[in-house]
């Protein structure tokens, strides 16, 4: 690492934990995207990464840049707010499109849980 930032010990431990937790949540969500059986189950997996994984990584980034620079860093919060608003809208529209295509194609919907 080539930057000259110096962080206090607790901030570094907390940021490391948040980074590891967020990336593991994203990986688990994408594992669900790959492993689940049908489309409606696969909609649920990656939201883990899009909500909590994103939130943890944004918190780690905010912590690191707030401790390194002077003054709080608020630029990542913009990303968090925007993604929290847009991810459910995308999922909802995709689910409606998939339902429409299923019905138009005269295919049987997969059974519920």
């Amino acid at each position, binding site marked *: *690492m*080539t*930057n*000259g*930032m*110096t*962080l206090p010990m607790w901030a*570094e*431990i907390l*940021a*490391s*934990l948040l*980074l*590891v937790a*967020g*990336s*593991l949540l*994203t*990986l688990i*969500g*994408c*594992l669900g*995207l*790959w492993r689940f059986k049908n*489309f409606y189950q*696969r*909609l649920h997996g*990656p939201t883990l*990464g*899009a909500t909590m*994984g*994103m939130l943890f*990584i*944004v918190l*780690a*980034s905010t912590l*690191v*840049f707030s401790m*390194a620079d002077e003054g709080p*860093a608020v*630029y*990542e919060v*913009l*990303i968090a707010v*925007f*993604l929290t608003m*847009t*991810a459910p*809208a*995308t999922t909802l*529209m*995709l689910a*409606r*499109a*998939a339902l*429409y*295509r299923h019905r138009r194609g005269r295919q049987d919907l997969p059974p519920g849980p």
Partner: protein
Amino acid sequence: MNGMLAWASLFSLLCIAVAMLLAALRLLKGPAAQDRVQGLDILYVCTMLMLLVLGVRTGSTAYFEAAVTIALLGFVSSVALAKFLLRGEVIE
């Protein structure tokens, strides 16, 4: 900044890279069109997370603009593709 945050960000980058690989496999394999659109959607979210982690790792704030741009354009493209699957045209 010494070792711990460097190792944590490296591990985080590797995890997100594997997640992007899984999303790309779903994008290539997906039996129907909506599976491919969902794979693309998750791929841009993972790309944005990877840019944030790279910003932490290098200590540079230049990655944030790229992350915001990817978030905006990815949302618009996902909504446009979902509208296209729903109606057959993007703007009605």
